[in-house]
């Protein structure tokens, strides 16, 4: 037991006994055979790729609808109508405090009780979009309020309406300030697409874990990890670029 390399299944123990002189080498072989098994990988590659497609679809839907809804709520909030704002703040605080997984499960299993049966895909989309809406509303709102009051006054004093001042003068400045926190939050929430496995969404992690249990081999999980890296690393790098690009120059 003491000599066993961590992570190597016990079934391989007798092999190791037969080839004692190349122990180090064969430990490496067994490591790659376990985690990067070519045959398994080839077999399940199509599944993982279809998972990638589902993840991309899900992520795009979440980002577009979540950010759009968040922006609309922030713009509504700037109208400063008390009852509307209380409602917005309540909704935003609700979805910021509930764990995304809980929302997904509530929608998926609670939907039928309300006579709608959302698919796992729809449940995951809706849940994460609502969470992104809540967080992005707060970020957009913080951006709008951080624009100096004098900007409103200058715009209004030249005859721009409230809406024109908001859209042409205040919002462009607010958006610049919101880009860094917004990209970070968007990436964090979009990675939550992996939670879709719980409600049988066949995204990357779902495909990878079912391939893993069918093949009794963790290689598909490694492919899944690689797929996430390929998908999100460019986004993270792009976010870094956007952050420097949008840094406030006065």
């Amino acid at each position: 037991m003491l000599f066993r390399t961590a992570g190597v299944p016990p079934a391989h123990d007798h092999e190791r006994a037969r080839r004692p002189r190349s122990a180090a080498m064969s430990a490496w072989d067994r490591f790659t055979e376990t985690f990067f098994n070519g045959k398994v990988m080839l077999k399940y590659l199509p599944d993982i790729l279809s998972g990638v497609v589902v993840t991309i679809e899900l992520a795009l839907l979440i980002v577009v609808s979540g950010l759009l809804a968040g922006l609309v709520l922030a713009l509504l909030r700037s109208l400063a109508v008390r009852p509307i704002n209380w409602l917005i703040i309540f909704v935003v605080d609700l979805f910021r405090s509930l764990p995304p997984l809980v929302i997904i499960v509530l929608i998926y299993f609670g939907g039928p009780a309300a006579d709608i049966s959302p698919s796992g895909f729809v449940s995951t989309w809706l849940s994460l979009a609502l969470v992104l809406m809540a967080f992005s509303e707060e970020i957009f709102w913080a951006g709008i309020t951080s624009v100096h009051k004098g900007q409103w006054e200058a715009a209004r004093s030249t005859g721009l309406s409230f809406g024109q001042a908001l859209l042409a003068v205040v919002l462009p400045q607010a958006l610049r300030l919101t880009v860094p926190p917004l990209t970070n939050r968007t990436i964090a929430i979009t990675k939550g697409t992996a939670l879709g496995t719980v409600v049988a969404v066949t995204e990357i992690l779902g495909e990878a874990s079912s391939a893993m249990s069918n093949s009794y081999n963790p290689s598909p999980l490694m492919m899944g990890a690689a797929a996430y890296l390929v998908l999100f690393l460019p986004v993270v790098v792009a976010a870094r670029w956007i952050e420097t690009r949008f840094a406030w120059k006065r």
Partner: protein
Amino acid sequence: MADYIVDARAIHKHFGALHVLKGVDLSVAERELVFVIGPSGSGKSTLLRCLNRLEEPSSGSVVVDGIDMLDPRTDINHARQRIGMVFQSFNLYPHMTALGNVTLALRKVAGKSRAEADALGRAALERVGLADRANHTPGQLSGGQQQRVAIARSIALEPRVMLFDEPTSALDPELVGSVLEVMRSLRESGMTMIVVSHEMGFARNAADRVVFMDDGLIVEQGPPAAIFESPTQDRTRAFIGQIQRH
């Protein structure tokens, strides 16, 4: 009443429990330059802001160029085009060029095409001596240049009245002159102006009338020489003495 282009009567303004304007009357004739002076917190900015309804007076009446500014049926955005306003902190839009700043309202409110707006905008920048800075952003301009762009932004709309709220207070001393120069040329072109400022030299040789405010009321007003040399009220005397010692 038709003699006055700005006619404000019995203006009161409360901010919660704070009574900031306590019944101010201010009537300004066409082509007149009225200087408003007074201690900090006396309500000068609030009074200016009541004239274009950036601030809603608690009571009173404001008529500008024949338009009842406080009538809810008045198209306030249209009316505001006739009243230019220049702020202490310039308030240029930092994400636009100088020309963009000047043309925004021309396009959005006055309904000019981009070409028309650009032509009018360039002419306005020319008037403040910044034709060559049209494509600079505010961040690339000095304070004095920024304030002149802000003036251009207002005059491009061809207002009937210009309100200035301490236009040179945020400027380094060496940049004050260029802004005052532009204001002087505006005055010579016949613009009606209400100026809150402590630039006494400018007041002396450009103002028709100086209004001294204290504690939400107009205490005394008259020609610059009278107010500066022989004020009749103690409070005016004390204030003039204070700023002249500086």
